């Protein structure tokens, strides 16, 4: 009813100029596939499905993996900008589900974790979409391990991206010295905020509705 009356009052509120981009959002979900984290892929799949159910026509979604070298298009599992027509939209979502199922069923554990590379790839994708609201969801323990020769120690340019770390599990050494866990999170927060983004952590996956909140 509220929507109906809002629509009814529209001519009073607006001059009537179309604005197709101002309300869309883009989300990139980075899934850590290193080490034992492959066991957590079911959770990542659930998050991706939640995003598929939540995002609206015009929004963009990309799911990419974090492995030894993540700054690559090959690591993108699937990406889509949702169509405005409901029939096409539903078909796109079905295709996305299939791609996710295939990824979860066939992924092998990677020896290294290139989180920065994944983030760079995500920022590149988000910039291309042109959406005003950009979110990077990192499903990882945030422990970066780079292979020899990979250079990632430079400032990030996140360009107003919101970064949400999901399911940041505690490692064995974190249990021994919890300060390491805290320092790890603080280091990422500092790096992201210096790059112009915002950072927060959501470990309770039962409250996924908070994922895309401002």
């Amino acid at each position, binding site marked *: *009813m509220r*929507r*109906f009356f*809002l*629509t*009814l009052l*529209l001519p009073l*509120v*607006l001059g*009537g*100029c*179309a*604005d*197709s981009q*101002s*309300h*869309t959002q883009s989300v990139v979900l980075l899934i850590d596939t290193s080490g034992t984290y492959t066991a957590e892929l079911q959770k990542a799949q659930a998050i991706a*499905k*939640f995003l*598929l*159910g939540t995002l*609206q*026509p*015009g929004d963009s979604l990309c799911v990419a993996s974090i492995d030894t070298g993540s700054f690559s298009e090959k690591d993108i599992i699937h990406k889509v900008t*949702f*169509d*405005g*027509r*409901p*029939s096409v*939209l*539903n078909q796109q*979502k*079905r295709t996305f*589900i299939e791609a996710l199922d295939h990824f979860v069923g066939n992924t092998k554990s990677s020896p290294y974790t290139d989180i920065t590379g994944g983030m760079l790839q995500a920022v590149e994708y988000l910039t291309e979409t042109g959406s005003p609201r950009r979110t990077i969801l990192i499903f990882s323990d945030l422990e970066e391990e780079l292979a020899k020769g990979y250079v990632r120690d430079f400032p990030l340019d996140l360009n107003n991206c919101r970064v949400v770390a999901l399911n940041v599990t505690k490692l064995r050494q974190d249990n021994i010295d919890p300060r390491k866990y805290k320092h790890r999170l603080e280091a990422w927060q500092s790096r992201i905020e210096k790059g112009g983004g915002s950072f927060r952590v959501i470990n309770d996956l039962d409250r996924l509705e908070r994922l895309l909140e401002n």
Partner: protein
Amino acid sequence: MNRIFEGMNPMTLLTLCALGMVLLYLGRAQVHRAIRQASRIFASALRLASRAVALAEQRLQTRNREVLLAEGASHVEKELEREFQRIEAVVQRDLQNYPALHRQMSGLLTRLDEDYQQSASSPPSPPGWVAAVTAVTKLPDPEGNLVGTILGEIKQEADRQHTSSMAAYRTQSQQRHKRLERMMPFWRRLQKTLSNAERNITGLQQRAQAIDVRMEQYETIRSDPERAARYLSSSAFAQFAISSLVMVIAVGGAFINFNLIALPMSEMVGGGSRIGPLQTSHVAALVIILVEVTMGLFLMETLRITRLFPVINQLDDKLRVRLAWFSFSILLTMAGIESALAFMRDQIAADSHALRQALTGAQATAITGANWIPMVGQMVLGFILPFALTFVAIPLESFIHSGRTMLGTATCGFLRFCATLLRIVGSFSLTSGKLLISLYDLLIFPLLWVETRVGQIRQTTGISTPVPAAGPDLEKPALPSKALLPTSRRRKKAEGDQ
């Protein structure tokens, strides 16, 4: 401020207070005058404003009454016009054809008369052979065979004649019955024609009575405007309440209609684009509904059920009918589109439901029973609602007409309230001025007390009190100067002085 006084010596503070009090005492007359004048100016301004608002309210009330009476008269005129149109239609349809009707009835009566004449039974011929038999029996018959033979011949002839005459009689009777039977439809037709004529005459009498009532109302409006205004006002209130209720129901219908077509519209215009905070598909759905309502308005207008647009009412009849058909065609097309959209909505909703189940990992539940019923229901609703919304034009017309009266009455009430409020605030400002003067005096009451005591002492000792230069008698109005007095009073004053 507290900080200023905090570090101050009490004696200094006391001295300052005393100094301040003296200053206030010295400026007492001027301050009193200023306060009094300010409060009077403010009160006068408010009183003037109140008067202006009251006048505006009166003017508006008069205007409202004029509009109400004009609308009432116009309404009665329209009803009279409609009654006359109906009478004209009856006269044109039935009474204009009265000569033909008369001829038809005369013809029917003539035919009935002829048939009646022909159906009359012919009396049987008297038995002539009886006298002949009597005469034959008196004949002399010595042999006794002649009479018997003659009688036998007569009998045979009589029997033959009887048989043939009976046959003829039966044939005639049959024909008479047939004629009588043929008369039945004529009788019925005649009876029906007479009934129709009677009904038309009765209808005309009723219309004439209705016209009498309307004429009486019209005369009341002209002769007793007060009573008519009261009656029309209460009628407008009732109309406003009823039309508002129906409009609310219509808005509910429009809301259901909107929900039926909003989702499938996204399939046509896309669900991603937005106009401001709203999806374009929602705006498109609303536009469709508004176009339907507009077409409904035009249809009602062209059918002369409502009279919101004088231009349409003034159109040529042929053009008006064409416009009515055009509006109806668009409405029908819209209804068809809505029905199709409702069908599409059902499909999209089912698909989205299946996808949601796939996303949540729930097992798809098989729908048992007739799942086509909601779909058909939606399609029928989609087809009917545009036509149902057409009838919004009738309460809308009532709402607009009665709303004018309601708005006028409400504005009058508001203006009256404003006038009263302004008068109250004006009085309050006068009282506030007096209160301020009293408070001012309260601040310097020691000096005033001293002044009073000195005055009393002077009175008791017989010393005349000079008029203070700075403070004339504050409560008495100052005497007007010569320049301000009118000429006649100045002359009288001069004579008195001499």
